[in-house]
């Protein structure tokens, strides 16, 4: 008996060692392998799986009508997009082209040498760069090279409001911080939550930091901090910004239970829609969210305006924050770079722009302006387009500008300062501790 079991143990151990060895060598074959290893006759495009990908499908179908090499869309369930992408991107199952958010979402792929700089494509077709608004295009540029072509639309963050509530209390959308504070006082006295906040999602809270820091210190503070100058977080400007945020929280602007409210499950948009809250700082997608839930409200009573200015601050009032755009990036190992280039050209085509506008997205191409009147909501599209076009700077959301590895700690710090668990020094220290590479 014992002999047999010893033999078996040895056999099992041998199998295990063999398999692990093979698996490890599988990992270490870095890069996606040679182009000839990749599937023939197709390019795979990994795309965020959600309701909006019907446009991507339409564009792929258009492309496939005339191309011998076909585009295959691989739709990855949205919530798990990054997990799946990270698992496959350095293997031979990697897509040729993949959807991303620019900035930190592709930085580590660039560092690992997996991505194709698009400079060659742009040299062959300059319109691949000149057709897009520069403030947007540059979020996917790193170390002097361009790694992404914008697709889908831009998503600036704006101050949304419920017009009926504002009218009832004689309030106009605030243009200065002091006006905002005054509005908060009025609304709070009336028993209304002044500002809806989906604090349980954490990223909506971050939007307040992005704007207040910009208005107080200008975009430079964050840019320098991201470039490695950690002293920015303890600078006077940083402390002023934190004090302003604190002032707003202490004034009761967000009510008492924002820690348990989410945007993603419809909690905070509903507060705004039902008039239990007057304002919400949110990305431009809030319009479609409200429209799906109550078309009449979105059309009639949903107000939107730029973030107010802060007196004495260094930031420009036209500065924006948010998701500059979604991008397509290309894997270095792709077998058919020319096909990929031709596919990417469709991202500034009239067909693409019209199809995106029709589902409520706002592309950032130079020809967008020709089709604004065909948008799902022309007024809203025009307002947003001008906001982005005139922006002095367009700050990519902090959690997307920093590497992925920083996001959990950043969200914890952002939420901790709002909840009062961290003081200003604690917040600054937490931001300084974030990895920047």
């Amino acid at each position, binding site marked *: *008996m*014992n002999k*047999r*079991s010893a033999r*078996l*143990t040895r056999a099992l151990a041998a199998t295990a060692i063999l*398999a692990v060895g*093979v*698996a490890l060598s*599988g*990992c270490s074959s870095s890069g996606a392998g040679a182009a000839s290893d990749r599937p023939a006759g197709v390019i*795979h495009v990994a795309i*965020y*799986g*959600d*309701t*909006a990908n019907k446009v991507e499908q339409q564009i792929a179908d258009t492309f496939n009508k005339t191309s011998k090499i076909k585009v*295959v869309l*691989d*739709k*990855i*369930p*949205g*919530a*798990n997009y990054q*997990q*799946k992408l990270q*698992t*496959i991107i350095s*293997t*031979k*199952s990697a897509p040729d082209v993949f959807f991303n958010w620019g900035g930190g979402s592709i930085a580590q792929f660039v560092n690992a040498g997996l991505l194709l700089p698009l400079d060659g494509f742009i040299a062959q077709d300059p319109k691949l760069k000149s057709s897009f608004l520069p403030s947007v295009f540059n979020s996917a540029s790193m170390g002097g090279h361009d790694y992404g072509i914008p697709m889908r639309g831009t998503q600036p963050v704006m101050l949304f409001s419920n017009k009926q509530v504002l009218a009832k209390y004689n309030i106009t959308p605030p243009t200065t911080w002091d006006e905002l504070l005054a509005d908060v006082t009025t609304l709070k006295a009336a028993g209304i939550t002044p500002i809806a906040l989906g604090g349980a999602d954490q990223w909506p809270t971050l939007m307040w930091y992005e704007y207040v820091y910009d208005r107080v210190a200008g975009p430079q503070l964050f840019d320098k901090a991201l470039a490695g100058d950690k002293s920015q977080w303890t600078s006077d400007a940083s402390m002023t910004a934190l004090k302003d945020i604190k002032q707003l929280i202490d004034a009761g602007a967000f009510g008492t239970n924002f820690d348990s409210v989410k*945007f*993603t*499950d*419809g909690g905070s*948009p*509903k507060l705004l*829609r039902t008039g239990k809250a007057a304002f919400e700082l949110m*990305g431009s*997608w809030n319009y*479609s*969210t409200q429209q*799906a*839930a*109550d*078309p009449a409200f979105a059309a009639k009573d949903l107000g939107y305006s730029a973030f107010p200015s802060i007196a004495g601050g260094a930031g420009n009032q036209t500065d924006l924050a948010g998701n500059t755009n979604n991008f397509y990036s290309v894997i270095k190992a792709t077998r058919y770079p020319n096909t990929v280039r031709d596919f990417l050209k469709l991202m500034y085509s009239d067909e693409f722009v019209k199809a995106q506008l029709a589902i409520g997205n706002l592309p950032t191409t130079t020809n967008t302006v020709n089709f604004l009147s065909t948008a799902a909501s022309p007024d809203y599209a025009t307002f947003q387009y001008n906001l982005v076009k005139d922006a002095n700077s367009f700050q990519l959301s902090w959690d997307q500008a920093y590497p992925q590895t920083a996001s959990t700690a950043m969200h914890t710090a952002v939420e901790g300062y709002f909840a009062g668990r961290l003081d200003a020094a604690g917040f600054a220290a937490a931001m300084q501790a974030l990895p920047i590479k």
Partner: protein
Amino acid sequence: MKARPNYAAGVGAVIWLAIIAIPLYVMLQATFETQAGYGKTGALGIPNTFTFENYVNAFSVGFGHYFVNTVIVTVSVVAIVVVLVPPLSYAVVRNQNRATSLVFRLFLLGLAIPAQAVIVPIFYLISLAGLYDNLIGVILPTAAFALPICTLILSGSMRDITPELYEAMAVDGASPARAFFRLAIPLSKGGLSTIIVFSALQAWNGFLFPLILTQSDSNRVITLGLFNFQTQYGVNIPGLLAAVVMSMVPVLLVYLFARRSLVQGLMGVGGK
């Protein structure tokens, strides 16, 4: 069992029923609302719209070949479990030497491996085997991760067959194989149907393995189809829940059908 009904327990059970049923009611009710209707009333409101639109949508996005793929995965996983677990449990229960008790501990360890922790190595294994984006590549690890709990349950069931029965068969000259097919299997039917139901549930609701190990639309399973109801920043709640309810119905039918055996099988887990 008991001579008189236990009223206190009955009242407690009814309270528990309410705790279970209210969320389920909320779910069902939401599936018959339009998204706009749901947006107005919310989770607990009284429905002000009634529509089958969500079910029609769910059918159009998730129930063509997704359904067929899910059935293939589920049936194969159950088949593997049914072939592998009974001989293993038989050995664990009847051959109590060191090697088998080591195996039993190995499976206890297996109970404690979170699939998320090993998904990346599994991806490399499956890729090496050339099974990436192939339903077989989903079936194998799903079945492997169903083994520990199934082994625990079936061993419990087989343990309750009295040793005297085996000895009687052995005296008649029966081989272990004969004892297995004539005695162990027939007397642990309850446990067998339990592991069938559990492995089927795991395969049917499996998300992680199909997510990481498949890619093309032709190999998609129902759970991956649910993302059609979300956007980057929100969810179409009625649509998603309708799809969930639809994907649940086949399992519910199997469950109701197998419930009696399930309870019998679990009796084995507890020693009797």
